[in-house]
């Protein structure tokens, strides 16, 4: 065996074991936290309303499933999230391209867009409640608002910064506006769109919790709020944990793989979180 091969074989094994070790370390950290939490409950000596034990939270979680509450709330939350993300992204991309294609329109609208981007969705929710009442419409609108601006802004910037040399090359080869859009603008704007979507997805998830707390009668955000109101703190914590896992699932199963398959593959960003 040459020294190079001798080095390569253990390295491949080490990579496999490192992944497992990382998962084990993560699980160990969570287990340690749960044990510390459980042990601290009798020490603190507070009632389950103030400081529920992990076992109370686990019971609350099982109870919510047994009573059919959690599946319905998760489905409602994910449905609203998917609709908000879908419509917000579609609108953001269409308007971002349309505005970005015209330099004058982009210059004219930029201050307004920056201003609206800065207004958080929480500020809009009371007005949406007045206009559309409590329920799905208000939450979905808030989510569309949250998603629309980051996607629009990133798309707009990407369209405006498309390489002029490529635009000129297509034009010099006899290409029209459609060809420029198809072969230069859209491919060069795609990383910006995905970056905007990645950013918006995080904002939208937080917006979903706020929206459901203020304007819904179902959903995991509402569960968190209702649990606290009805003095079922264990339910509130179970809702928070479910929210956390939902976001992890969305991030790990959808956002990161799409980002890896597109933006990172083209070498345009380096995700520091991947190195953790």
């Amino acid at each position, binding site marked *: 065996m040459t020294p190079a091969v001798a080095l390569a074989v253990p390295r491949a094994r080490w990579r496999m074991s490192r992944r497992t070790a990382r998962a084990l370390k993560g699980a160990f950290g969570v287990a340690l936290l749960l044990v510390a939490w459980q042990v601290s409950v009798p020490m603190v000596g507070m009632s389950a309303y103030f400081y529920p034990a992990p076992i109370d939270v686990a019971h609350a979680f099982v109870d919510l499933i047994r*009573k*059919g509450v959690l599946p319905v709330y998760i489905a409602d939350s994910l449905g609203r999230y998917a609709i908000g993300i879908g419509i917000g992204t579609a609108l953001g991309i269409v308007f971002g391209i349309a505005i970005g294609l015209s330099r004058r329109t982009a210059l004219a609208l930029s201050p307004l867009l920056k201003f609206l981007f800065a207004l958080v969705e929480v500020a809009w929710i009371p007005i949406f409640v007045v206009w559309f009442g409590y329920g799905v419409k208000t939450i979905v609108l808030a989510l569309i608002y949250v998603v629309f601006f980051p996607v629009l802004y990133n798309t707009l910037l990407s369209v405006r910064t498309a390489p002029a040399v490529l635009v000129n090359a297509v034009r010099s080869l006899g290409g029209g506006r459609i060809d420029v859009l198809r072969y230069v603008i859209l491919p060069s704007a795609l990383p910006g769109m995905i970056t905007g979507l990645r950013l918006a997805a995080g904002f939208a998830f937080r917006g979903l919790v706020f929206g459901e707390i203020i304007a819904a009668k179902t959903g995991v955000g509402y569960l968190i709020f209702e649990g606290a109101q009805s003095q079922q703190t264990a339910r509130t914590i179970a809702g928070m944990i479910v929210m956390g896992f939902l976001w992890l*699932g969305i991030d790990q199963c959808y956002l990161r793989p799409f980002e890896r398959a597109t933006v990172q593959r083209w070498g345009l960003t380096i995700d520091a979180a991947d190195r953790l």
Partner: protein
Amino acid sequence: MPRVPAIATGILAMLVAFYWIAGMVGGGHKLAALEPLANDGGSYAITLAFAPERFHQQLLQDRGRVVGVDHSTVFMMDVDPKSLRAIAREYWVVEVRRWSPR
């Protein structure tokens, strides 16, 4: 489409399909003794596996008129067949039986 999102979507779709099919089969069993259902809306006693919470009451109110609750049984009127099937599909509904308001 990248592999991980495809697998995740597949698992989600399977879960939803399982939930739906299990609900339909379970609902069918619960209503077997009541068929054929009254077209113009009937009165039914819905027994849950536990005392109903606000969530269950709201859900049942959307599907008929809730006129009373006794422990884990909810008494309803004006429930059309479609709504009754939707109620029976829920896994936390133990029994559905006819009930005559006095």
